[in-house]
């Protein structure tokens, strides 16, 4: 017994199996976590080696080169880049996507172990970091206070950070910008010199004096007592009266030589939120925890946390990464539902009967729900990719059911009982339905095998559509016949659509049928004209290829702009602060779309790697700007970003700036794309000169913003040069002298003050007044072991100089990267223009200039896509050839492909969308969708010919009778894509090109296919018949001769 026969004969079993699938699917759905993208393991690792005291060039030669050479042997390595700075070498290794990073890190470790002996002696062991998305913070909070900032840090730590840390899924929360308490002992060098006391001695004494020492235990009588010496300071004011030595018989107190301040740390990151001094709280999640879950939990705990705070502290959310996730998923869910609604309307329009429409519509939820089961079993989340896949599949799931139901209704109309009709009609179309499903699978299954970045995105798409379509086939072969047998009624003769509306629709559809048949007849009479016309249309559309722009990834508006502003190196904090206030005032008035501006400036005080990796200094300000939702404003982040660029350009003090709409949220189609030109070459001067020329080209190219060189400017420094001979004569060592210099300027942490369980640093350094000019450095007193003091100026000199920049490598060669952000212009166009200009350049020998950045990814992925396209075309051909048992018929059907691409180009051109990776994927999907129409058409024409009808009549009759199913399945697919192509809601921009290209391709190809494919078919078969006739004639001649 066939599967559909069993289904019809056992309706209870069939119904319950599908109810089971739905329940299990809904259960899976409730368990799915929500995320923006499928799990991506970042393909980067880096190796950091410190070699204290070495210059950038030393580091490059002795460490970076050594390690790079050996590290390049690690398997699956794609690119190796490095930065050699003073003291530090940082090598970054990029691997192919999908590489197992745990194995890679092990490989790197063993390579480093081998290299350990070849590194200079003073170098520390190299450290390996594995990058992962887990490191990205999930929530940024800011805390403002109108009261004393003194206690802010402590309050935040106790009342906010600690409770948040206890929440499940939170890995760490770091407080930044909150002034930390510090006890400062600011010595007066003139006084210490007079008393012959050094800062080091003071620090050591404080350390000695601030101690609790257990002294053992004593038995007294019947009990044992422990003995303790309690010497710890109870409060900072005690330091004032601490005796640090004696001079001429009198005690010298600490207060005599230094000012003691119980205050805040000197150099900290200053965070301002909406112009007010605040502290930032950066919360990271544990690896594997779900962003939305974690943030939801934190938000749930927030009211309680806020209630526990003093009334003057306000906590605000600056950036909630889960919000964009939730919005995107929400709008995509709407898209899916809307697509479902459109599909239902089409079905209702064509079938005109409630019962029949209901049967078809039921196949939608049953098939879609299967995708949730797959997602749960594989441990995936509900993300943009999986939801978009649903939206793509929704128009196709009804196709099989429509074909089956249509045949069942035909049988019933011819007088069969619904039960018999269900079985036998399904039997008739089962093979054709399976074949057309297989062509779709032939397109989507290869997507699961794509490698690289695209692979991560399309793996889920491939699996989900394959699964949904397979399930929809199962539904069409079991549930649809079963329901038809139960629900469809036999119609008495003459009793047809009685409803007025349905009758009107029927009239229209009949008219279309007749019109199409007439068109087809005319086309068959003028075959050559039709074919030349078709070829001309296709050729003309190829011309559009020159006009349509190419891009890598569509840009998306996530409501965030990151701005970094750089003042000349060495600018003082006060200046930076002034500028910050100015920019804030300007922007908060100019851009009403902005909800929060958080700025941070000054040196980093972050203890976590995330903060330490970003550049910091007194001359840098970085902004995180949050805007209202993209649907609530007219200007996009890209437009606002560009206006901000103009504002910054107008400020002469700014050395350079970078505006990144969308934030640097790790590529993946978020925000804008970058343009990069690598200037590779060993000679620093030549390279720098070339890079300068490249920068000028980029600056003059339309559509590139924020052009910058990766090699930083030389920064000013004061270099202390000791004369070794003089040092030795004075009994001093270089290291000893250098430490003294460091202690005077940077300070030395003497001890810790313990108060209420908290510890605060006690720092000894020269008073700020004595750290303002070069003379102050020269006047530093150095003491040798005999206690004899020498001024620094006697044993050395202080020279003003510039420190050399960092040296960067790409694939083991020196490089200067010239980078820019792209604004409102297609990547392909810019590349073309820049390449043209670069050719004109007179580049010195040994220097090489290459365009890189997003362009490189684009080239790679586009090449991947074309391979995929070829593979998909071949697979669909195989499936069709097997179905028709012919090599010629699938070849004829394949003629609808060029017109699909014609449609894609036209649609992209009209909407002004550029050909991106996503649009290309849409074009590939078209292969499967478009040939489906051809299959239905040719299959029926073949059938007619087998029934002995002449070719011309077979073609016209076949076309006329298959027009409705073709139009219906096409319209469901097109309308299913419409919500996606309209791009409503957050994050939908990414998939818009796919919707546009599918709609365009499918529309054009269907219209042309309906005329051209039958014409080509007739031409091919007519020749075939002439051949047979010729053979026959020849045989006649032979017979006659004989």
């Amino acid at each position, binding site marked *: 017994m066939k599967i559909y026969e069993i289904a019809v004969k056992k309706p209870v079993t069939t119904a319950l199996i599908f109810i089971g699938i739905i329940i299990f699917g809904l259960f899976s759905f409730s368990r799915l976590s929500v995320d923006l993208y499928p799990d991506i393991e970042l393909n980067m690792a880096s190796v950091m080696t410190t070699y204290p005291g070495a210059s950038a060039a030393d580091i490059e030669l002795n460490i970076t080169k050594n390690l790079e050479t050996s590290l390049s042997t690690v398997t699956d390595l794609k690119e190796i880049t490095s930065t050699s700075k003073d003291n530090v070498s940082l090598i970054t290794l990029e691997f192919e996507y999908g590489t197992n990073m745990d194995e890679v890190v092990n490989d790197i470790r063993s390579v480093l172990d081998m290299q350990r002996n070849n590194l200079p002696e003073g170098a520390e062991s190299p450290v390996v970091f594995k990058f992962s998305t887990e490191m990205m913070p999930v929530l940024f909070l800011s805390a403002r206070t109108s009261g004393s900032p003194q206690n802010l840090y402590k309050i935040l730590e106790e009342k906010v950070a600690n409770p948040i840390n206890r929440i499940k899924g939170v890995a760490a929360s770091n407080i930044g910008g909150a002034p930390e308490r510090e006890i400062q002992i600011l010595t007066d060098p003139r006084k210490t010199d007079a008393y012959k006391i050094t800062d080091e001695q003071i620090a050591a004494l404080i350390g000695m004096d601030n101690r609790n020492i257990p002294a053992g235990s004593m038995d007294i009588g019947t009990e044992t007592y422990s003995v303790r010496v309690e010497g710890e300071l109870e409060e900072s004011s005690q330091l004032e009266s601490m005796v640090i030595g004696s001079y001429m018989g009198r005690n010298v107190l600490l207060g005599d030589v230094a000012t003691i301040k119980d205050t805040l740390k000197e150099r900290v990151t200053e965070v301002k939120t909406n112009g007010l001094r605040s502290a930032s709280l950066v919360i990271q999640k544990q690896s594997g925890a779900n962003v939305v879950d974690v943030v939801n939990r934190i938000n749930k705990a927030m009211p309680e946390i806020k209630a526990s705070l003093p009334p003057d502290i306000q906590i605000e959310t600056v950036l909630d990464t889960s919000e964009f996730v939730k919005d995107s998923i929400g709008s995509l869910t709407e898209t899916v539902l809307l697509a479902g609604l459109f599909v239902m309307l089409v079905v209702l329009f064509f079938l005109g009967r409630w019962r029949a429409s209901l049967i078809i519509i039921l196949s939608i939820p049953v098939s879609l729900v299967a995708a949730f089961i797959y997602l749960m079993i594989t441990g995936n989340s509900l993300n943009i990719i999986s939801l978009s896949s649903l939206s793509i599949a929704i128009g196709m799931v009804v196709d099989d059911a429509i074909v089956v139901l249509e045949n069942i209704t035909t*049988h019933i109309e*011819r*007088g*069969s*009982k619904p*039960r*018999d*009709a269900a079985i*036998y009609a399904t*039997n*008739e179309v089962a093979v054709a339905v399976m074949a057309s499903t297989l062509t779709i699978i032939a397109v989507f299954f290869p997507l699961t095998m794509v490698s690289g970045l695209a692979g991560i995105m399309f793996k889920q798409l491939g699996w989900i559509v394959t699964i949904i379509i397979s399930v929809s086939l199962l539904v069409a072969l079991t549930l649809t016949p079963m329901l038809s047998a139960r629900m469809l009624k036999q119609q008495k*003769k003459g009793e047809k659509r009685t409803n007025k509306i349905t009758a009107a629709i029927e009239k229209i559809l009949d008219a279309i049928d007749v019109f199409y048949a007439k068109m087809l007849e005319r086309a068959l009479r003028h075959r050559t004209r039709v074919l030349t016309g078709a070829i001309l249309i296709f050729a003309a559309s190829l011309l559009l290829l020159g006009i349509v722009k190419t891009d890598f990834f569509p840009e998306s508006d996530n409501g965030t702009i990151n701005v970094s502003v750089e003042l000349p190196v060495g600018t003082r904090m006060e200046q930076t602060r002034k500028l910050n206030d100015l920019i804030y005032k300007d922007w908060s008035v100019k851009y009403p779309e902005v909800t929060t501006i958080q700025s941070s400036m000054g040196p980093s005080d972050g203890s976590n790697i995330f903060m330490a990796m970003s550049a910091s200094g007194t001359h840098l300000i970085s902004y995180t700007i949050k805007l209202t939702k993209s649907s609530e404003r007219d200007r996009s982040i890209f437009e606002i970003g560009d206006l901000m660029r103009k504002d910054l350009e107008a400020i002469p003090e700014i050395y350079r700036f970078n505006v990144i709409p969308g934030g640097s949220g790790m590529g993946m189609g978020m925000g804008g794309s970058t343009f990069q030109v690598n200037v590779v070459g060993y000679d620093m001067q030549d390279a720098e000169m070339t890079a300068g020329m490249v920068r000028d080209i980029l600056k003059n190219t339309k559509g590139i913003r924020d052009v910058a060189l990766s090699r930083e400017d030389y920064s000013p420094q004061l270099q202390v040069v000791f004369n070794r001979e003089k040092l030795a004569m004075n009994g001093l060592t270089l290291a000893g002298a250098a430490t003294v210099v460091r202690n005077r300027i940077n300070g030395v942490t003497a001890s810790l003050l313990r108060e209420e369980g908290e510890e605060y640093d006690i720092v000894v350094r020269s008073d700020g007044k004595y750290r303002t000019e070069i003379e102050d450095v020269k006047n530093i007193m150095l003491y040798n072991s005999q206690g004899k003091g020498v001024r620094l100026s006697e044993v050395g000199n202080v020279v003003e100089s510039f420190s050399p920049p960092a040296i960067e490598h790409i694939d083991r060669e020196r490089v200067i990267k010239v980078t820019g952000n792209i604004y409102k212009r297609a990547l392909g166009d810019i590349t073309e223009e820049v390449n043209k200009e670069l050719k004109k350049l007179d580049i010195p020998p040994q220097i090489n200039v290459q365009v890189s950045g997003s362009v490189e990814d684009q080239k790679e992925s586009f090449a991947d896509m074309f391979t995929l396209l070829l593979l998909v075309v071949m697979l669909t051909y195989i499936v069709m050839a097997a179905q028709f048992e012919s090599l010629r018929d699938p070849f004829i059907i394949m003629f609808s492909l060029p017109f699909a691409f014609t449609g894609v180009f036209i649609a992209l051109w009209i909407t002004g969308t550029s050909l991106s990776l996503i649009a290309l994927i849409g074009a590939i999907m078209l292969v499967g969708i478009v040939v489906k129409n051809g299959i239905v058409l040719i299959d029926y024409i*073949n*059938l007619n010919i*087998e*029934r002995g009808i002449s070719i011309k009549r077979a073609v016209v009759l076949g076309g006329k009778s298959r027009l409705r199913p073709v139009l219906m399945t096409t319209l469901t697919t097109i309308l299913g894509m419409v919500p996606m192509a309209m791009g409503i809601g957050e994050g939908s921009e990414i998939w818009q090109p796919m919707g546009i290209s599918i709609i365009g391709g499918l529309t054009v190809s269907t219209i042309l296919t309906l005329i051209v494919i039958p014409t080509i078919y007739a031409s091919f078969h007519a020749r075939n018949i002439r051949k047979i006739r010729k053979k026959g004639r020849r045989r006649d001649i032979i017979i006659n001769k004989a």
Partner: protein
Amino acid sequence: MKALMIVYNQAHNLLIMEALDKCNVRGFTKWEDVQGRGTFKGEPHYGTHAWPSKNMATLAIMEEEKLQLLLKELQKINDEAEKQGLRAFVWDSQPVI
């Protein structure tokens, strides 16, 4: 006794069974999956791609008075769906064993 050979589109399967029961015809032999085409205008029933439908054949043996009743039922079925195809042929039959 009369033998009635009914050859019909397999989609009529249930209707024929109902008609036999209705007329109290007990004895019959049935072949599923038979092929054929009509003498004058009946479409072929081959179970192929071009002619996907198939026939069934039932040879029923009954008393003469039941025959007329059954033929009337069959005529009704055929009238309702002429295109499906239903033909009946009658022989005399002698029970031997």
